């Protein structure tokens, strides 16, 4: 898969070209491309003077990074403790059912990715589902469909 890598240089320019900038740079690449393309990892290694092995190690260690393309909308089901005891599992199963993918996967049309996240810090509204950066509180099995519809619209 070829990706337009021209946006990378702007990302490198935001930070000092030092190994310390690695995580910040990878975060920006992830945000820009919705994943970390292989070529971008190689270029990052050169730009920041970090061994490629370390770039790979870091990009597979942290949850924030993905080496495969993510969907346009990332649905994050909060599975923090409060959400868990208030039925996050049911919500997860319902959304998996609706989207026909498991948590951690992306729909074939690259529209949705489904993820679980350990606490988004909105416990009072548990269970919580975030669609990209927008939070939805007190989600029920019944409201999942609505949520996806809203998500599709944007």
């Amino acid at each position: 898969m070829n990706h337009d890598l021209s946006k990378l240089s702007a990302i490198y320019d935001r930070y000092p070209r030092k190994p310390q900038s690695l995580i910040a740079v990878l975060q920006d690449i992830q945000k820009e491309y919705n994943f970390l393309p292989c070529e971008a990892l190689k270029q990052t290694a050169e730009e920041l003077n970090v061994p490629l092995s370390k770039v790979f190690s870091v990009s597979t260690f942290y949850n924030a990074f993905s080496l495969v393309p993510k969907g346009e909308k990332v649905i994050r089901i909060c599975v923090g403790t409060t959400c868990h005891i208030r039925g996050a599992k049911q919500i997860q199963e319902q959304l998996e059912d609706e989207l026909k993918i498991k948590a951690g996967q992306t729909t074939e049309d690259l529209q949705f990715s489904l993820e679980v996240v350990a606490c988004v810090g909105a416990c009072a509204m548990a269970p919580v589902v975030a669609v990209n950066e927008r939070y939805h509180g007190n989600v029920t099995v019944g409201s999942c469909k609505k949520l996806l519809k809203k998500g599709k619209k944007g």
Partner: protein
Amino acid sequence: MRIENAGQLEQYRRECQARLDKQTRRLLVCCGPGCLANGSQAVSDAFKKVLRNRKIKGFKVEALKETGCHGFCEQGPLVVIEPEGIFYTRVKPAHAEKILEETIAKNKVIDKLLFRDHNNGQPITCYRDIPFYSRQQRIALRNIGQINQCDIDEYIATGGYSGMAKALTQMTPKQVIDEVTASGLRGRGGGGFPAGRKWKTAASAEDTPHYVICNGDEGDPGAFMDRAIMEGDPHSVIEGMIIAAYAVGAHEGYIYVREEYPLAVVNLQKAIEQATEYGLLGENIIGTDFTLELNISRGGGAFVCGESSALMRSVAGEVGEPRAKYVRSVLKGLYDKPTVLNNVESYACVPAIIDKGGKWFASIGTKKSTGTKAFSLVGKVRNTGLIEVPMGTTLREIIYDIGGGIQNDRPFKAVQTGGPSGGCLPEAKLDLPVDFDTLTEAGSMMGSGGMIVLDDQTCVVDLAKYFLAFLVDESCGKCVPCREGLHQLYGMAVAVSEGRATEETLEKMERLSEVVAVGSLCGLGKSGPNPFLSTVKYFRDEYLAHINDKKCPAGVCRELIRFEVIEDKCDGCMACVAACASNAITGQKKEPHVIDQELCNKCGACRTVCRRDAILVL
């Protein structure tokens, strides 16, 4: 504008206060995480829209403020009208016009938006009279929900940066450390290490440079105090860090923020820019020769990075693996240099300590755990939200007086504190005072402040399994006991929950827990068995019910339960039929429904939606 000295800061403060005083009415819309999830942004936008089209007598647009978490998340979206403290709950965008026309313009309180006491149903107008608030004492959360979250002028108006000015212009670094030592402040991240002692060690370390770091990697699932502070009062954290940096001679600092908190990053960044513009941060702070540069370091999504040595490696752009603690990070921390690491809440307390004195802070709380502590009170409690109480307050006071007891008047079962490193305390422990040492002694821990209340419909085996799964996911994988041991413990917890275990399994789990607790390299592994150990200690019978009777008394563990409709109670409303994802429930309107046990996947959705309590768990 650049503030050149302490006098100018005071003068500017008076200007800010005067400006605030002119706003005789202030309309505060809570935009904390809970209220945002409930749609408070739309509420705020609705107010703005009305104000664009119409003039409301005696009210200026500037007096509409988007604040951080006001605390009472359960009742959100919240709208507060100051100075009276009129407290509107569950506000919808459609209410905006009415609030402006009635309450702001005509001083009329809208009865149906008020909070109602659950005991007598009486409305309470002012939030300060609601037990949820009246029993709290706020230091770390002093400004949150009170001021516009991204406005440095309001922070200054409420006394902001006066602690810093005092430290930088009237005190030596040693005096600052002495004051913090006298306050008895202990690390709010959960460790409880005395901040003054940490600062003293770092200050006297010969190696240079020194660093200050703020741990904003609030990873405990069920805790959101630090998020609320970083989003709602970022300047208090920055001010605390400047004071710390001055005390230990650091000129460079990092705020490590969890990647799941994008708004915290945005607000902190704004606050850093504002403070730098005012000369309160950066070079020659308020005209002194003290300089501090603060940077934000975004976490990559790894719970283990809450551990100090892992966090420091992550700040340096590396994999967040902890290292052995024989050299303390306060001497060899970031880039192997002396580093002071405190958490968000600790830093937020510091300006108040310098301002009012260590003695004042030490007079609050208990002898060994001074001051106050913020908690996120969540779970099956009636009043969920963000609270702050003096140390030594009992669990019962927190859960019953502030929290209003258990949701739907169900029986209390346990309270979980300390997240995945902590444990569950049963009813018998409810009168324990909440402080660092008492909670640890009881088999749990203070942790960063997540307090999750459990009722009889929460299964402790399921909960232990949940935390173990979390830790297996989050283990960095460096050392054997944590990587392999937690994985094995999780497997055995699953076996218990599925009725495949024997009493020998339980003994094996206890033996293995010892190996993991003693043998692991860092705190994540060392405390990893706690959720299991504390539940098996206080709720052994429940484990045995799973093992011997193949029953889950709380009705949670799917392999051991089945759902049935109680015919007499079912009114045939079809709610469960619609909710069932596996189409296992059939029935006609107004006729009792039936659950097909073959199709049922035991998710419990029917039980959640049933308004008549007609779903029985066996």
